[in-house]
C-alpha cells in the first residue's frame, strides 16, 4: 500500500472512531438521563395510584359498612376502580405467593421482579423492551399484596433510536466530507515526496548530475537537500573512478602499442628466417640484428615498467640523508655516462639533510640526466645542482640540448609520451622516464617544473618539502 493511502486510511479510521464514540457516549448519557426522569415520574405515579387506591378503599369500607373488606370484595373493588380505566399504564395485583389476583389488562411480569421486591422489601423497577415495570409490596386489609404497574416508555426509547439513526447518517456524511478533505491534504503534503522519489530514481539509474528541486523548510525539503548532497558525493566519486579508469585504459592502450611494435618486428623477422628458403648472408645478419635490437627495446620497456610499478609500493626506506654527500656519490656514477658522450658534467649540492628514499632519489637523478644526455650534442654542458630555500630543497637539472616545445610540456610526464618518437626510439627510450620521475617526486611530496627553450636547452626544477640546511 502506498504511503498516502496508509496515512489517509489510518487518519480516516481514527477520526471516524473518535466522532462516533463521542456521539454514542453522549447519546447514551442523554438516554439514561431521560430514562431516569421517566422512572421518577413513574415512581411517583405508582405511589400516587396506590395511595389513592388505599384511601378509596377506606371509603369503600365505610360504604359497605364493614371493618375489613374480604378478598372477593377487594378483588371486585379493584376491578371497579381500574377496570374502566383504559389508560395506557396497566396494573396488577398479586398475593405473596405471586399468584395473580387482578390485572386490568394482559401483562407479562418480568422474571425476578417479585423476588427482588420480596428480598429488599422496597420498591423495584425493571425495564423490559418498551415497558417499564415497577413493583411494591403493600399491606391491604390485613394481607400483603404485590402491586405491579406497567408503564409504556416507547417514546423515550424511540427518541433514542431515532437519534442513533440520525447520528449514523450524519457520521456517514461527515466521513465523506472528511475523506475528501483528507485526501486533498494528504496528497498535497506528500506531493514533494513524489518529486523526491522521481529524482532519486533518476539518480539511481545513473544520471548522477540530476538534482532534486528543494522548496520550503520542512523535513521533506531537508530530505531533498540531503539527497542532493548524496548525489553530489556519488557524482564526485564516480567521476574520480571514471578518470582513474580512463587513465588506466590510456596507459594500457599505450603499453600494448609500445609492446606490439617491437613484437611485430621480432615475430615477423623470425618468421621470415624460418619460412624463406634462400636468404643471403647479408639479409640474415640484418634480420637477426633487428630481432636483437627490438628484443632489447622490449627489455628496456619491461625494466622501466617494473620500476614504475614498484615505485608506488610500500617497501620504501625513508632516511635523513646529507645532500652534499649523496649528490657527490650519484655524480660519480653519472659521470661515466656523460663521459661516454663526451659531455661536461657537474653534480653538487649545499650541505643539509633531507628525508628521502635513497634508491628512488638516485633513480630520479639518473633519469633526468639520462634525458639531458639524450637531448644534448657532444661537448655540451649538463649541470645538476641542489640548494635549500627556506623549508624546501630545490634541485635543478640543466642541459643545453634541443629543448621541448611549449605546447608539449604539459604532456611530457604522461607515460609513453614522446616528443620526438623517432629520436626517442633511436636512443632506446621507452617514454616512461619522466612518468617515473613524476611518480618519485610525488612520493617525496615535491613539485616538478620545466623551463625550456627550443634549441637552447631545458631546466628541470624540483622542489621537495622538509629540507634542513646545515649552514
Amino acid at each position: 500500500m502506498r504511503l498516502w493511502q496508509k496515512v489517509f486510511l489510518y487518519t480516516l479510521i481514527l477520526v471516524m472512531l473518535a466522532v462516533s464514540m463521542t456521539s454514542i457516549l453522549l447519546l447514551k448519557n442523554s438516554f439514561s438521563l431521560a430514562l431516569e426522569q421517566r422512572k421518577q415520574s413513574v415512581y411517583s405515579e405508582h405511589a400516587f395510584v396506590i395511595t389513592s387506591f388505599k384511601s378509596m378503599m377506606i371509603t369503600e369500607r365505610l360504604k359497605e359498612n364493614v371493618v375489613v373488606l374480604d378478598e372477593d370484595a377487594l378483588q371486585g373493588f379493584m376491578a371497579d376502580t381500574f377496570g374502566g380505566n383504559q389508560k395506557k399504564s396497566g396494573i396488577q395485583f398479586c398475593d405473596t405467593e405471586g399468584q395473580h389476583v387482578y390485572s386490568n389488562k394482559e401483562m407479562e411480569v418480568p422474571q425476578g421482579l417479585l423476588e427482588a421486591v420480596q428480598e429488599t422489601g422496597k420498591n423495584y423497577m425493571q425495564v423490559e423492551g418498551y415497558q417499564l415495570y415497577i413493583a411494591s409490596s403493600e399491606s391491604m386489609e390485613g394481607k400483603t399484596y404485590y402491586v405491579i404497574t406497567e408503564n409504556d416508555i416507547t417514546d423515550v426509547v424511540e427518541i433514542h433510536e431515532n437519534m442513533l439513526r440520525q447520528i449514523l447518517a450524519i457520521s456517514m456524511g461527515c466521513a465523506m466530507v472528511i475523506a475528501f478533505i483528507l485526501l486533498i491534504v494528504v496528497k498535497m503534503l506528500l506531493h514533494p515526496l513524489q518529486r523526491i522519489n522521481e529524482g532519486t530514481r533518476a539518480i539511481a539509474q545513473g544520471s548522477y548530475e540530476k538534482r532534486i528541486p528543494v522548496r520550503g523548510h520542512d523535513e521533506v525539503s531537508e530530505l531533498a537537500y540531503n539527497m542532493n548532497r548524496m548525489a553530489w558525493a556519488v557524482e564526485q566519486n564516480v567521476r574520480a573512478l571514471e578518470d582513474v579508469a580512463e587513465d588506466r585504459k590510456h596507459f594500457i592502450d599505450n603499453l600494448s602499442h609500445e609492446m606490439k611494435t617491437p613484437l611485430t618486428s621480432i615475430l615477423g623477422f623470425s618468421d621470415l628466417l624460418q619460412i624463406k628458403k634462400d636468404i643471403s648472408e647479408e639479409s640474415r645478419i640484418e634480420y637477426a640484428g633487428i630481432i636483437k635490437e627490438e628484443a632489447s627495446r622490449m627489455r628496456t620497456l619491461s625494466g622501466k615498467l617494473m620500476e614504475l610499478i614498484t615505485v608506488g609500493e610500500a617497501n620504501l626506506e625513508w632516511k635523513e640523508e646529507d645532500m652534499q654527500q649523496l649528490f657527490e656519490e650519484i655524480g660519480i656514477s653519472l659521470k661515466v655516462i656523460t663521459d661516454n658522450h663526451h659531455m661536461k658534467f657537474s653534480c653538487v649540492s649545499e650541505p643539509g639533510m633531507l628525508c628521502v628514499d635513497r634508491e628512488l632519489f638516485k633513480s630520479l637523478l639518473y633519469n633526468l640526466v639520462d634525458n639531458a644526455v639524450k637531448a644534448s650534442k657532444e661537448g655540451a654542458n649538463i649541470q645538476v645542482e641542489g640548494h635549500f630555500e627556506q623549508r624546501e630543497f630545490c634541485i635543478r637539472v640543466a642541459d643545453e640540448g634541443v629543448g621541448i616545445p611549449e605546447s608539449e610540456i604539459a604532456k611530457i610526464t604522461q607515460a609513453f609520451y614522446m616528443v620526438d618518437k623517432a629520436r626517442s626510439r633511436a636512443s632506446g627510450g621507452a617514454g616512461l622516464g619522466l612518468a617515473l620521475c613524476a611518480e618519485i617526486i610525488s612520493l617525496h611530496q615535491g613539485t616538478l617544473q620545466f623551463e625550456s627553450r627550443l634549441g637552447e636547452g631545458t631546466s628541470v626544477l624540483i622542489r621537495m618539502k622538509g629540507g634542513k640546511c646545515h649552514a
Partner: protein
Amino acid sequence: MIKILIVEDDPNIAKLVEATVAIGGYEGVVCGNGAEAFEIMEHGNFDLILLDVMLPDMSGFEIMQRRTNTQVPVIFITAKQELTDKVRGLRLGAEDYIVKPFEAMELLARIEVILRRVKRTENVYTYGDILVNVEEHTCKCAGKEIYLTPKEFEVLVFFIQHKDVAISRDRLLAAVWGFEYEGESRTIDIHIQQLRKKLNLRERLVTIPKLGYRLESAKE
C-alpha cells in the same frame, strides 16, 4: 609487376613488410610519414596500399578520409586492436584490417584475396613445364592436360604463388580448406602425394620436417 605502397613509421616493421611482400613477388615502396604518404597516394600508381594508423603528421584514418584516389585498395596494418578502431577503419573504405603482430603468410594471403577481388592477379601461372589457368580451371603438364580434383588444383595454385616458401600444414589447411576446417593434416599429405604423382613433382615439392612443404623454383 604489382606495386604495393607500405606506409609505416617504424623502420624495422617497414622493412619486415617489404621483405614479406617480396616473397609474394610484389614490389614494395616504403613511406614513413603520413603527409608524404598522402601525396604519394594521390599521384602515385599503386595496386595496393598497406597503411599504418598511428603515423607522424597525418594519421592513417585521416589519410583515408581525405584521399580522392579511391580506386586503389587499402589494407590497414595497425597495433590498434579494438573493435571500434577496426569498424572505423573498414567504414572508411579499407578492404581489410590486420592487427600487429601478424604472420608473414597471413599478410600475403590477405593481400592475395584483395588483389584477386580487384582482379589484379594473373590468371595463368607457369611453373617449369606446368601451365595452370585459374580462369579455365585447367592444368597442363608438358602440353598434356592433367585431371586434378578441385582441392588438388587449389593446393597447386597456392604452392606456385608461394614458390620457395616453406608452408606449414596449418597454413595450407586455412588457405585451401578454410579456417573453420578441422580436418587432419593427413588430408594434406594425401593431396601432396597425388600432386607429386600426377605432375611428376617428387623432387621439387619437398617435405620440410616438422614444418610442412615447399615448392622449389623450377630449374631452367
